[in-house]
């Protein structure tokens, strides 16, 4: 395909290819180069050093912890997302806009604040700190704190994908199912869920990527105990601050891989199932 000719919808000889070039260059320097650096620096001392860094017990522990946290936070947020979207899109009730605002709120809060609030509640000097200590429970500097911080940061993702789609779809198909004799549960399982499945998957995908990659919020509640409360992004930080460049970038490469995988799956969903995603996701 040529860069000049009728394919351009604007006739500005010379300018159009220039604009493509400048855009591509800006994207390459600003966005692609950092990605390349991750893999380059991870492999700076060869494949063996890379694989050795992967086999570090602390690295393995960090991977396991990251998976554990996501495995708890993502399903909870998915259930909430479906319930929230169902409430908001299928019913008319007072206070709906307040509910919508609350769902959006975490997007405008700093991740560090999203961690901080849990410390204020459950930290040593937090609201419930003494009570927790008396009962030998640990939330902050432990897995429950990581899960809570991750949930707060990632909970809008699923609801945000579902709400516009379910609004577009309306309630007619559900009403039809009821007139045909379906029970509420059957209606949900056989009509609603299939109609939103790709958007749900899309939301879960974004939610999961953020859950596994979250840094600021978990950094506040983790306490950075190696092998115990370090998720993979925190492990990256620890190694980086130890001047272990290969180790840090090796761990980072796993997260970058997750990011790329997310992008690929997301693009596939956008291309193959655009009709079943909300309008803003149709490309």
């Amino acid at each position, binding site marked *: 395909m040529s860069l000049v000719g009728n394919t351009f919808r604007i006739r500005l000889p010379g300018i159009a290819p220039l604009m493509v070039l400048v855009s591509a260059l800006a*994207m390459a320097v600003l966005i692609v180069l950092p*990605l390349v650096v991750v893999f380059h620096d991870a492999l700076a001392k060869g494949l063996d050093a890379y694989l050795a860094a992967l086999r570090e017990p602390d690295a393995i522990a960090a991977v396991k912890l990251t998976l554990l946290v996501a495995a708890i936070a993502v399903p909870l947020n998915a259930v909430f997302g479906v319930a929230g979207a169902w409430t908001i899109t299928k019913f008319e009730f007072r206070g709906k806009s307040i509910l919508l605002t609350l769902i959006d709120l975490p997007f405008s809060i700093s991740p*560090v604040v999203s961690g901080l609030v849990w410390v204020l509640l459950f930290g040593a000097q937090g609201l419930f700190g003494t009570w927790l200590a008396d009962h030998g429970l640990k939330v902050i500097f432990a897995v429950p704190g990581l899960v809570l911080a991750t949930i707060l940061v990632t909970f809008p993702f699923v609801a945000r994908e579902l709400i516009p789609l379910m609004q577009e779809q309306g309630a007619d198909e559900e*009403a039809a199912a009821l007139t045909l004799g379906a029970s509420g549960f059957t209606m949900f399982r056989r009509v609603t869920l299939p109609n939103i499945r790709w958007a749900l998957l899309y939301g879960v995908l974004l939610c999961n990527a953020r859950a596994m990659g979250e840094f600021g919020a978990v950094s506040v509640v983790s306490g950075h105990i190696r092998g115990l409360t370090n998720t993979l992004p925190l492990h990256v930080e620890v190694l980086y601050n130890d001047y272990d460049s290969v180790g840090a970038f090796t761990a980072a490469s796993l997260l970058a891989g997750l990011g790329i995988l997310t992008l690929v799956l997301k693009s596939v969903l956008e291309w193959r199932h655009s009709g079943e995603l909300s309008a803003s996701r149709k490309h």
Partner: protein
Amino acid sequence: MTDHVAAPPVIRSGGDIAPRPRRLKEHSILPGFGLSLGITLVYLALIVILPLAALALRPWEIGLDGVWRTLTDERVAAALKISFGLSLLAALTNAPLGLLIAWTLTRYEFPGRRIMDALVDLPFALPTAVAGIALTALYAPNGPLGAMAAKIGLKTAYSPLGIFIALVFIGLPFVVRSIQPVLEDLDRGVEEAAQTLGATDLQRIAYVVIPALGPAILSGVSLAFARAVGEYGSVIFIAGNMPLKTEIAPLLIVIKLEQYDYAGAAAIGLAMLAISFGALVVMNVLQIALARRGRA
């Protein structure tokens, strides 16, 4: 003549003329309202309302003047200034950059367009810590781009410029993704009308296209700004974190927490929320004004 029937009405609930009592919820035949609202409210209460209430109440245990002293402390004030100032600068920089990329992606067909389109979301998808160390490696004095910049006398990493670069990186997708759908849906007829009326390409873009995109650009810029103010992971490595010079506000929260100064940390967090909220209100008002002008 006709069998027009009028039987006495059977009153079931309320009168048939009297206004219906205002209900909390309109009647709906769809089931599951109680269950789904219940889940939503309990979840929101536990995950959002309770923690934010803690944030809103905690600072006041050191009193109004304590909060004031915390926020006007030289180091905290400098960090707030750096965070909000650089975030605004980065978000504004993203406006022309995002417009250029969105334009290229929607108006031209070229090899690799789809890949480029997908890559726009990379800053969303790449964990912030990864972006942070990668940007630092690139822009450090011994990094490939940092060394180039050093030759012309620019210090990138460990300077405000480094923070700025990181904030442009994480803000770009917000602007592109805000503009793109609007640009795609823009009525070609309006542009063609401008052409038939004798407008040059530049006039058409300046007078027809960009005004139509105004609200979308502004909304993208405010999203990018909101994200940048709170950003931590991608900034913390490249910033250098020198007090008064390159310390961002979220870092000061972390530092206060490490000193077990919960009230101070909460005060900074609350102040950030308040300032962000104020900025968003201003941008929303602007956006509504722009949108109204577009409709008139």
